[in-house]
């Protein structure tokens, strides 16, 4: 008798770093909404602590990080460290933006799962999420 249709995929879309526009993140957020997900959009310039606090408070199934500034090597590890401190291990973490191929292996080791660079068809991201949920 559980109303399973009440279960919605929740996604936090966050934009860490200092670069000044979030058009890409907004496009992704809208596409996920149109695919029936509940998307919490948090705006620009998020610090790792703000992002992880948002994850604690919003309890998403998925965290999408959008990044363009190349700061991923500092920011992602810090986010993962804070996730670990808070014992959060059942959230699917995706990254979008420009991340050089060479850096991806290292980030994967840290727990980042999907990479979706600019120009990835939105449907691909939606499908990826549906197929990789951790709970």
């Amino acid at each position, binding site marked *: 008798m*559980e109303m399973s249709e009440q279960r*919605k995929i929740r996604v936090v879309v966050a934009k860490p770093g200092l670069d000044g526009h979030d058009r890409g993140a907004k496009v992704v957020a809208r596409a996920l*909404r149109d695919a029936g997900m*509940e998307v919490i*959009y948090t*705006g620009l310039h998020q610090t790792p602590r*703000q992002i992880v606090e*948002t994850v*604690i408070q919003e*309890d998403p199934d998925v965290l999408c990080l959008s990044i363009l500034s190349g700061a991923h090597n500092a920011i992602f590890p810090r986010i993962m460290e804070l996730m670990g401190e808070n014992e959060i291990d059942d959230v699917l973490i995706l990254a979008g933006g420009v991340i050089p191929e060479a850096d991806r292996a290292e980030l994967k080791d840290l727990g980042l799962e999907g990479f979706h660079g600019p120009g990835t068809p939105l449907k691909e991201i939606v499908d990826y999420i549906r197929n990789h949920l951790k709970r």
Partner: protein
Amino acid sequence: MEIQALVDKFKVGNRRALSRLISLAENGFKDARLISKELFPLTGNAYILGITGAPGTGKSTLTNKLVQLIVENGERVGVIAIDPTSPFSGGALLGDRIRMKDNYTNQNVFIRSMANRGRLGGMARATKDVITIMDAFGFDYIIIETVGVGQSEVDVYGTAHTTLVLVVPGMGDDIQAFKAGIMETSDLFVVNKMDLDGANKMVMEIESMLDLNQKVEVSRSKYENSAMEQQSWRPPVQKVNARRGNGIPALWEQIMSHRHHVESKGVLECKQLNRFKNELLDILEERFKLQIDQILDPKENPSILEDIRAITERKANPYSIAEKLGKRVIESLENGA
């Protein structure tokens, strides 16, 4: 079982357990019921503020400022920010947090975004459950930011201790549209964006509407007992600039004097009566609805196909079948299904 473990963590102040319990309550009636059983006894201490107003009037921006003031006073606050679910996709874009950045990492603040999941009015089905959970966690204040469309103020007024209605300069026509009823569903008017032209005019328009309404409405009140409240409380009108913070301390004083009014004159009993009556109605509707859905679902109840065939062949009429099914609904409720 999972719930019990979460409740244990919750009781020692674990914020992630708080967050998980909210998700569980949001996603299922059964879990909401279990959670209420565990946590409702711990509630009754939080003061609930409702914030409503048309889209873009500044509800989130104002919430951000009120949250800041509350934590500066050394108190703890939970925020429930509700946005509409898209009727087309069933998805939602929840953007209220964008305006609340100042307080993301404060451990005395907990902000939760909610989609209304198609429920009419300004709140979600599970908003009442989130209130219970936040209250039990020990927040001194809970702020509900409603969906800013339709008659959301009616809904939140039935739940909150103090309801703030936001308007902005240039909304004079909307004020006219409020007409009767507005006295019944607001405790305080906030004219936000006082930096824009027309704020004083807006204040005057509301005041004169209040002058008019006060005379006619006391006698024909839709809200039970609220006639009594109205006689002794005229909603103040406060100008603010929520972005910069002008007028916020004065607004807080108004909120506190309304709180004093609520807590000192038996108004609280009226509010509680309305609140829990609404809540019971919600729960009963959902409980029956679940059972009804089950009985109408051929996978759960194959004989429904015969019942419907009897109707299409004109051997039975819809009312008689509904009567029969209604009895089965009640039976299955009694069996605790």
